[in-house]
């Protein structure tokens, strides 16, 4: 191939709605800087761990909608995690696994939903801004919204001698709603809410029983905070949502279900399920343990194989 530029790993040909994300910025909320980072943390970490990356700092493409296509220019391992159809040189390929893609091949990812899809690629490096390569779509800090013609780059190096065949086994359960820790405003969780818009800044909902929530002096916000606007709309803050806000907060989504906020779809009805602190803690613990078990390494499979051989 004559058109390979040193350091270029992939040339993007078609993008959909795609940004660069990692685990995001931590500890800068007091300066007004939101976390940003992968909207669906569990899927991001799975994509990165399958290719033996760092689930804090290894960049991944976050695809929220549409069709993403790129030409790979040197041999790499790729992992696509999330609801997508994957093709390599027009042949169907598996998601949720580390796949070797040869230089010159075209990788296509069609978003199917619900929620974000992540693609991690060995050798790809992105510059960090305030400690992270993630794209904050609200303030514009860091990362980038990918466009046709953009390249993914990394230091020149040999093809990875890596675990092709490691895969991700998703064991997350759907609880039929978003579990929420209420803040004393009864009633609003008894009715369904219709999703009217969704973005990394926040998911907006209407049509439920509006809580009477009074005034709320401007104060700190957290990801998953459920705000109630004077117009009776709910906003669930996402990773790019502001770190302070002046709307009353009627609840906060349990950490175990924060990823699920990225999966809700416009024009669907959402049920909020009130839980208490011990329940939320237990749900988080169960989810974290399941996540640890969700990556199956080829090495462990081959060890089982060799013990059978001997």
């Amino acid at each position, binding site marked *: 191939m004559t058109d390979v530029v040193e350091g270029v790993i992939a040339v993007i040909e078609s993008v959909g709605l795609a940004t660069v994300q990692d685990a995001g910025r*931590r500890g800068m909320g*007091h300066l007004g800087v939101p976390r940003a980072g992968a909207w669906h943390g569990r899927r991001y970490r799975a994509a990165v761990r399958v290719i033996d990356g760092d689930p804090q700092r290894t960049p991944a493409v976050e695809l929220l909608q549409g069709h993403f296509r790129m030409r790979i220019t040197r041999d790499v391992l790729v992992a696509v995690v999330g609801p997508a159809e994957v093709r390599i040189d027009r042949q169907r390929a598996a998601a949720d696994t580390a796949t070797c893609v040869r230089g010159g091949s075209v990788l296509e990812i069609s978003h199917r939903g619900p929620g974000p899809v992540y693609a991690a690629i060995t050798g790809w490096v992105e510059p960090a801004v305030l400690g992270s390569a993630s794209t904050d779509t609200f303030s514009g800090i860091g990362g980038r919204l990918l466009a046709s013609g953009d390249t993914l780059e990394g230091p020149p190096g040999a093809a990875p001698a890596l675990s092709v065949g490691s895969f991700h086994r998703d064991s997350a359960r759907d609880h039929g709603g978003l579990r929420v820790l209420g803040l004393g405003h009864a009633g609003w969780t008894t009715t369904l809410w219709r999703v009217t818009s969704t973005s990394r800044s926040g998911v907006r909902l209407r049509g439920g029983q509006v809580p009477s929530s009074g005034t709320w002096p401007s104060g*700190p916000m957290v990801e998953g905070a459920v705000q109630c606007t004077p117009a009776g709309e709910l906003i669930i803050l996402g990773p790019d949502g502001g770190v*302070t806000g002046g709307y009353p907060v009627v609840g906060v989504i349990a950490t175990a279900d924060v990823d699920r906020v990225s999966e809700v779809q416009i024009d669907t009805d959402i049920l909020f399920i009130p839980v208490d602190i011990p329940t939320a803690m237990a749900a988080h613990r169960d989810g974290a343990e399941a996540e640890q078990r969700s990556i199956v390494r080829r090495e462990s499979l081959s060890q089982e194989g060799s013990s059978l051989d001997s």
Partner: protein
Amino acid sequence: MDLTARWFGDRAVLVDVQEPAQREQVAALLAGEFPDLQVRRGMVSVLVEVDAPEAHLLDRVNSALSEVAVSSVLRPGSATAHVVRATYDGEDLEEVSQLLQATTSAVVQAHLAQTWRVAMIGFAPGFAYLEPVGPVTMDWARVPRRDTPRSRVPAGSLALAAGMSAVYPASMPGGWHLVGTTREVMFDPARGDRPALLAPGDDVRFEVGDE
């Protein structure tokens, strides 16, 4: 003083305070007590946030709070002091002076004479909410937010609303009254360990000048 924290989701607890002096005390105490946790200020609250749910967070914060002593007045001079040079050429200065029932020159003099404290940073990276501290030189609370926000306020705009001052760190939509401009860069991600010029708890005075 009876201060208690309450859960704000499963990764954070919130402490409601009565007034700014208490907020500064509580924030300083908690930041000192828990250097590994994220402590963030609201106007009348302090939030303590952790990366992952932690069952003992509420008890830890509440036992630290039992040490807070009573203090009534927030005084200037206790924090890092900044001087921000500004030009009072904002397009709402005339309207602001009408709201304050003073001449534009009296408003500018009062604004220059006022010491401001960074109550909290939010809305956008580096957007500091500055509240008057010490002797109040004018009844700033008479200036509300604008009825109709501007779709774009230039970076460096010095603004007033809801009894507070602020400098827009970047070009963005905004509903505050514009009274001036500054060339100071309020937020720069490339500025090493201090991307935001102002930190919560800092004091700010404005001076006339364009350097």
